[in-house]
């Protein structure tokens, strides 16, 4: 363990990380937002879901520094129902991150699994999986997610749908993202499969399943990590977009996208803070994650070293 840590800190990855202030800043921002989201119930000044604590009289209050209506209790102002914006952002980030991570995990499991099998087995299996991937690639992720959401609305009754909305969203975003993992892992698997260490394992007699998971999988994790990071940013955007379009999570458990949607209705009447603060939080989160992904891609690309 000690040796492994030493190897890590001596390695090129840590070097390029510790020598890039922007990357460190991104990591810190990402970590802060994740921690804030996890501990939202303890650090948020208000509980926006406690109907008893919300007073409609506090609605549409501007941020606290506004000299006319600013209220020190509501640092970033309130929305149309009198909920504290800062608190809703913290709780909203929870939903956004939950959907983001869960749907990426779903895509990774599905995509990496199918990619490994496709690349290693080849032949008809490969053709079949890749044809499906091709057809799905004809449709942008957002459209597929929209369709799945639409279908779910058709199948489930309204109340049930609201309850299941988050899971539907995870499924919809997750299933729309597997193709990229599958294609990348398939390509990498085909390269690794041709390498002599795999042939050596086959000569020993190691079975295909073991070769796939013990030998090949560890060697294709690099690109998966890179795609995963960038995909996390994309999944968060997709969730926000769907919620903004009104087909994501219901307004009762708002995510960042839902908050922006709510605020959008008040944009023209001058209550800009309802939209802008959740928007800034969203951009910060996505930008930080994207910067991390961008750095990872360059740092893990042996050709650029």
């Amino acid at each position, binding site marked *: 363990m000690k040796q492994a840590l030493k190897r890590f800190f001596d390695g090129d990855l840590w*070097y390029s990380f510790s020598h890039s202030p922007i990357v460190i800043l991104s990591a810190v921002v990402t970590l802060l937002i994740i921690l804030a989201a996890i501990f939202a119930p303890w650090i948020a000044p208000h509980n926006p879901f406690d109907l008893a604590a919300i007073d409609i009289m506090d609605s549409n209050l501007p941020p606290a520094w506004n000299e006319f209506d600013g209220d020190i209790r509501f640092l970033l102002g309130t929305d149309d129902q009198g909920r504290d914006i800062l608190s809703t952002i913290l709780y909203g980030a929870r939903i956004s991150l939950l959907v983001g991570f869960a749907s990426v995990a779903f895509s990774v499991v599905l995509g990496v699994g199918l990619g490994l099998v496709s690349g290693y087995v080849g032949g008809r299996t490969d053709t079949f999986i890749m044809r499906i991937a091709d057809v799905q690639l004809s449709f942008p992720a957002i459209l597929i997610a929209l369709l799945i959401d639409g279908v779910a609305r058709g199948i489930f009754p309204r109340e049930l749908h609201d309850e299941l909305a988050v899971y539907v969203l995870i499924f919809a975003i997750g299933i729309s993202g597997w193709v990229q993992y599958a294609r990348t892992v398939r390509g990498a698997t085909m390269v690794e499969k041709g390498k*002599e260490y795999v042939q050596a394992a086959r000569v020993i*007699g190691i079975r295909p399943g073991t070769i796939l998971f013990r030998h090949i999988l560890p060697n294709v994790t690099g690109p998966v990590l890179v795609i995963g990071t960038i995909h996390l940013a994309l999944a968060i955007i997709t969730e926000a977009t769907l919620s903004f379009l009104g087909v994501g999570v219901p307004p009762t458990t708002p995510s960042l996208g839902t908050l922006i949607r709510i605020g959008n209705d008040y944009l023209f009447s001058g209550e800009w803070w309802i939209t802008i603060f959740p928007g800034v939080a969203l951009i910060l989160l996505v930008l930080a994650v994207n910067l991390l992904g961008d750095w990872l891609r360059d740092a893990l690309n042996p050709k650029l070293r």
Partner: protein
Amino acid sequence: MTLLEVKDLRIEFPSRRGTMVAVDKVNLHVNPGEVLGVVGESGAGKSTIGNAVIGLLEPPGRMAAGEVYLQGERIDNLSDNAKRKLRGKRIGMIFQDPLTSLDPLQTIEKQLVETILLHLDLNENEAQQRAVDLLRQVGIPDPDHRVKQYPHQFSGGMRQRVVIALALCAEPEVIIADEPTTALDVSIQAQILELIKKLCIEKNVGMMIITHDMGVIADVTDRVAVMYRGNLVEEGPTAKILGDPDHPYTQSLISAVPRPDKRLDRFPLVEYIESAGDAKKSLDVANHWLGQARDFGDHYTGPLIHVENLYMRFLTKNSMFKSKREYFDAVKDANFEINSGEIFGLVGESGSGKSTIARMISGLYTPAEGSIYFAGTDLTQITTEKKRDYFRRQMQMIFQDPFSSLNPRKKVLDIVAEPIRFHGLASSRAETETIVRDLLDHVGLGDKAALKYPHEFSGGQRQRISIARALATRPRFLICDEPTSALDVSIQAQILNLLKDLQAELGLTMLFISHDLPVIRQMCDKVGVMRHGQLLEVADTEQLFENPQHEYSQHLLELMPKLSNVKAA
């Protein structure tokens, strides 16, 4: 007057781990009509010299000191633009890999004409005429027609001819060739070297050939400069360097080159190179783990391997209809036997099917037709994995590329232990580890190697790990598929010595595959010669080398580079 002169050259590659000095205090010169060979093993810095001369060092590499003169005129301090105008016009360059040296989207004509128009004062028509003439000069048949084609329509050897034509476009005074024949087969290599020799004499250009191959040096150069770890250790006429070298490094380098003319028991011991030793202590085979369980219980006395009417087909064009599918016969009707304790060699150029045979025997490919008998059992008829495992344990394989034959994510301990664990050859974790350490020690790596990862080792050391892994099943048959063709000659000598020692010690039977005839002569008892999937001749090694029967064997032996026939001065 010297044509090209390099004085006190120093090339550095700065990095965060400090500055790497690739080349230091190197002095070289090339005379008109002369071929200078720059020889050295990987990491000697020889390629960076060529790049520095033409001003194309890859960043972050830089020329830290030294001067370069062309016809007495200093060129290394010229402006970028002035340097660019020298390239192609006065200094030509030829690279190693002809398959990637040409722009795939433009016809040969376009690429030639563009270069000609740039450097010579000709009009479009004259340039086109010159392009065709150049192709004719480098020996491309039907140049009027072929000039209109794209690079992918040429074979590797033909493409290298096109590359040479491009380098000759503006009649440069000096040509720098960086490993010009390394990517080519022996027979093509001979043709290209012949062409280079001819052009040098005809056009009176000076040439610098950078290579790792002593055969090439012997074949075409007038003078040789020997590089070792960034320094020039010796320089002189080719005959002197090859016949009577002064520097101990040159001596050991030359003694490591496999001799084509007679078989030696072992390669002369090579000091000076890499600190890994040979198999140090000789084993008490009867009591050692490796020696145990050598009785395979079949009391079989015939040839260990017997291959009968073996065929391998690859699909080259798929189709929905069976009748429309097209196949390529990689191996056609191969028949041979390998006796117990014998080293059987297969030799041939790339694509001859020799590796395919190895893969069929080891079970990586399933033959299209024919039988492979191992100790009397037909392996192609085995249906259960369990039964196959029984034979897998007795048969192991060593691969060509030391950089891809070890899983980079696993510790050496786990790599070598994998066959032991899979076949259940040790009773406990501790025993497995003891065996692995012992094996690593035995192949000359020392038992500390177990806890490291493959990337911490050099190519030769990795090949030793591969050998340890292959021995870990206690096999009686070992397949070596070009085990040293990716290694420097001095490392090759060490590995071949190790294989010889192990073979003698453990009484292994071996199938040894190589494209390199001298290596075959040093290693094998019997040899099969292959071409286009066919086994043309099988003979005892000495007999084949002294008195080859098949026309193709004679041809191959003729092309074999020989250090003794140095180019006539």
